[in-house]
């Protein structure tokens, strides 16, 4: 017995409370609207499959949220392993500037100081063929010779 038509049933499927949908599918409807829905779903397999799909979709989204929340929302421990690395905004400007300043500091000892000021260090006249640089602590050092015998670049990092 079809008390409502398919198009009315689908209208109800768009707006019915999930509990009413479940009750209709379980044949436990209580309200008049749910009763009509239940009667239609009992006899129309296509509409019944649509009602089941609506409920299944809700359940799938809720399950997904629960699972993600369970796996990632419990605490901070796992996040460190795959945390997205984000440089702060100022780093885009300051990091190149700092690198340039470091290069300048290495180069400056060979350059004459500004007028009226002594150079930052004396002229380097005897640079050994293979300069030895000891870095403090766990820092690393890269030494780069250039074509100019007066310029050697030392990079500590």
């Amino acid at each position: 017995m079809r008390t409502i038509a398919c198009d009315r049933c689908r209208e109800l499927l768009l707006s019915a409370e999930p509990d009413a949908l479940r009750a209709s599918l379980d044949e436990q409807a209580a309200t008049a609207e749910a009763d009509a829905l239940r009667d239609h779903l009992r006899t129309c397999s296509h509409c019944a499959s649509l009602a089941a799909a609506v409920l299944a979709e809700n359940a799938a989204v809720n399950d997904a949220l629960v699972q993600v929340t369970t796996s990632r929302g419990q605490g901070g421990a796992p996040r460190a392993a795959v945390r997205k690395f984000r440089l702060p905004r100022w780093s885009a400007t300051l990091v190149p500037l700092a690198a340039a300043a470091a290069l300048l500091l290495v180069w400056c000892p060979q350059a004459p100081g500004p007028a009226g000021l002594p150079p930052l260090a004396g002229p380097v006249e005897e640079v050994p063929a293979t300069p030895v640089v000891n870095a403090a602590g766990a820092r690393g050092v890269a030494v780069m010779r250039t074509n100019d015998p007066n310029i050697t670049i030392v990079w500590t990092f």
Partner: protein
Amino acid sequence: MSGAERRPELERLARQAAGGDELAFARLVHAVRPRLYRWALVQVGDADDAEDITQAVSLRLHRGLAGFRHGSALGTWLYTLVRSAAADWRRGVKRRSVRQRSYATSHATFSAAPDRVDDGRLLALVRDQLGALPARQREVFDLAELQGVAPGEVARLLGLGESTVRVHLLRARRAIRARVLARHGALSEVGS
């Protein structure tokens, strides 16, 4: 233990934490963190950003507990903190507009994290369902439709009228279900 049963326990922890009990604060955060995370996740749609927001809310919770009026609902206050932190996050996204991170595009995050592929699949499903909804409808749909929170309670959490909540819920429900019906070839037959 249900949310309603836990409420007195959470409020007791909040009181103790406000009095400087760090252990109570840790317990409180442990208890509410999953809820904060889910709220944040529904708001921003990105798992990592939801973690950031949850972390920020934990800090705000710590700072704000002393000023919290314990007669008012803790859940409402927590939800306010999450929404505020999510709003800050959105402003941050706008500032980082070069990266074009949005609810719709942030799924690229998961392709770079092989051990989170499954999370990526699940979140893609969530985004597919909720991503097209306006933020307010998304919040209401998650709370009322998916979690089964009564519209009156949702209204209190969101600071809205109950009838407004019902309107948001109905619109969200229709939008999502219309897509489900369309996938099953039934949309054209629905007179909406």
